[in-house]
């Protein structure tokens, strides 16, 4: 038994057809996660009563458990909540009609929110306090100072971390395979099972993930260069 290189190509073509779905499954949770992350980070920095401890638990729970658990908990837990709510409010929603993809997106979004919030929090805290004071001194309000001074600096410092999160969640989409979602890994497994060529199919899918990851890293590197251009000549 040897490796069938021709089949790697064939599998590559077949599997790469679902690349858009995988990218959608990555981009959506990361973008929504950033929105959640900004809110969570602000509540935690301001140490709002009741909400801050709650969100502390949210962040530590999602960072402290494997992502496969988030997917499974959402997949098995959310339908129960939906059914209870539907019964209580006599709504015409059935949990069984919700597509599996929705559960995966929800789980990944919650997960991404927890990771993003830590990045944003450390990004905001990394901007020297003097910057905020300087903004106040020239008469800006808190939200103006945040939007014009603190957040842009925080984001430019967070780009490498966000790249890692993005690639991490690109890889996490492979876990949807366990719920038989036809993303890259799921299709690789189907292609492999039909032709009984498992190694070849997984080499092909590995190459696809690798290529996309490398591209994301390259783009992030260029973006980082651009947004930190103001730093040229400094330290």
């Amino acid at each position: 038994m040897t490796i069938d290189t021709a089949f790697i190509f064939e599998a590559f073509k077949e599997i790469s057809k679902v690349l858009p779905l995988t990218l959608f499954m990555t981009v959506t949770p990361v973008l929504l996660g950033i929105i959640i992350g900004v809110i969570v980070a602000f509540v935690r920095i301001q140490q709002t009563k009741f909400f801050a401890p709650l969100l502390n638990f949210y962040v530590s729970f999602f960072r402290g458990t494997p992502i496969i658990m988030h997917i499974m908990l959402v997949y098995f837990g959310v339908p129960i909540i939906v059914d209870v709510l539907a019964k209580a409010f006599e709504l015409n929603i059935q949990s069984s009609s919700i597509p599996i993809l929705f559960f995966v997106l929800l789980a990944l979004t919650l997960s991404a929110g927890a990771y993003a919030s830590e990045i944003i929090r450390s990004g905001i805290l990394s901007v020297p306090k003097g910057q905020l004071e300087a903004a106040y001194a020239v008469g800006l309000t808190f939200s103006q100072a945040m939007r014009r001074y603190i957040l842009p600096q925080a984001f430019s410092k967070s780009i490498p971390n966000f790249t890692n999160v993005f690639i991490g969640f690109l890889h996490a989409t492979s876990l949807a395979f366990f719920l038989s979602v036809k993303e890259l890994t799921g299709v690789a497994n189907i292609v492999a099972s039909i032709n009984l060529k498992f190694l070849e199919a997984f080499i092909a899918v590995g190459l696809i993930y690798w290529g996309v990851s490398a591209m994301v890293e390259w783009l992030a590197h260029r973006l980082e260069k651009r947004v930190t251009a103001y730093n040229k000549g400094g330290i």
Partner: protein
Amino acid sequence: MANDFDFVLIAKVLPILLQYLPVTLEILVFSILFGMLLGIGIAIPKLLHINILRQIITIYISFIRGTPILVQLFLVFYGIPILLKIVHIDVTRMDAMYFVIITYTLSNAAAFAEIFRASILTVDRGQIEAAYSVGLNGTQAFVRIIFPQALRVAFPNIANTMISSLKDTSLAFSIGVMDMVGRGETLIASTTRALEIYLALSIVYYVIVMLLEKVLKSNERYLNRYMPKEAVSS
């Protein structure tokens, strides 16, 4: 289904799942240990700028960082038997556990190699010159002066790798290892209560991750004990 969410079942399955915690920890300990050794091994050619070897290792690290651990797991699981068959070794009956440890070792090695390389480069060059000037040789200077300082810098990253590796062990069941998650799957089959079992599993992971984090934090403080206080406030 909604009204009979079974809290008691969670309490009932926790002790059963915990019996399989040693399997999870075994995967973790071996893959971290071998991963560190291999990681240091492959960091050296990069640090010493050995040309071809350095390029091969760069590709290796990039591949590991660029692919999901699940795909790596399948690649090792299906690939190693085929590779070994070429040299006429039959491993089709090998315990899936070995494949898991090999995969996580390869994965951790890539992470550790980058961490070690970066942390050694953060140590000031003057340190090694100072070590030479008091008569130490290269090995002594590295072991006594450079490595302890690099370790201090590297430790938070090492801790992160350990934690994420612990969470990654949750995928070992996918190639048939009977760890906590694997046992959980059989419990789901026999009780048909998936949510409760996954909650129990999440609780176990959460608690051991928190414990490991605590241990690693106190280690970090120990490594930083010589540093001025304001530099390590956290």
